């Protein structure tokens, strides 16, 4: 009985050690690369989508340069907003 208990406690300790190791390795390796790409594309995609919406609306209403400029600005704002959201999520995961 005592032998089994001993084994179980040792197993628990070993497992908890392994988990700590794993979580450390995850945050250190590779993840930062993915995060960097994520932030970049998030910003660019929103600007592109905003500009495309502006372009389409311009063609509809015939207000050629106006709406594309406006929606470019909206797109940039959305891009920065996206980046802030993603960065916040990353920080939450870290803590």
């Amino acid at each position, binding site marked *: 009985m005592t032998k089994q208990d001993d084994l179980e406690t040792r197993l628990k300790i070993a497992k908890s050690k392994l988990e700590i190791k794993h979580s450390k390795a995850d945050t250190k390796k*590779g993840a930062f690369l993915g995060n960097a790409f*994520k932030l970049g*594309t*998030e910003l660019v995609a929103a600007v*592109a989508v905003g500009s495309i919406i502006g372009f389409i609306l311009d063609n509809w209403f015939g207000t050629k340069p106006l709406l594309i400029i406006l929606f470019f600005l*909206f*797109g940039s704002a*959305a891009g920065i*907003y996206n980046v802030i959201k993603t960065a916040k*999520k990353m920080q939450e995961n870290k803590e």
Partner: protein
Amino acid sequence: MATNPMHQFNVYKIGPEIKINGIDLSFTNASLFMLISAISISIFLLLGTKDKKIIPGKFQLLSEILYNFISKMISDTAGKKAKPYFPFIFSLFIFVLFCNMVGMLPYSFTVTSHIIVTLAFAMFIFIGVTILGFVIHGFKYLKIFVPSGVPVVLLPIIMIIEIISYLSRPVSLSVRLFANMMAGHTMLKVFGGFVISLGLVAGWLPLTFSVALTGLEILVAFLQAYVFAILTCIYLNDALNLHH
């Protein structure tokens, strides 16, 4: 033939031309490599689940690790409600992963280095998640465009920004995967070309570089499949649990 680094991305027909209603449905090298990935996934998972032992063999161990990895990822990012979508996310992850990895073999074709493929994945996810949100929450789902605690004056502008941000999801999802794969493979080919043109004298430098790049590309191939799957989980989470 190999001098042009973009040559590897050419899509060409294999076998006869098939046209139905003016839509070109011919079998191409892209379809061939998708098929190869799908078949290798099936073989891998069939081998992994063939005889279930208490002490697992190599294949069983690998597939069990994969299963645990995805199920943990889903429960961490999307919670318990997302469990029914496990098969979808698992197949998505493993298919993207295998397409990327098959593309790493010499003389092969990388399916995910074409934006039309990744955009098709991303649009499927985007439309599916949007429909799911409306089915679960009804018109309340539109609340994700209206964040709480915003002054009424700013609301129209914030709503436009939120809508653009929502619509940019499939674009960023697909462009990320496509750009990573295409850039990496082009770079590998360019450095491979340097090895040939510099010859025995100075060709060793780009050779070592391209060995290192191959390692990096394998990391990127895995990472991008992971990011693709985890973002799908995050979007699913937004549709399942409205927080705003």
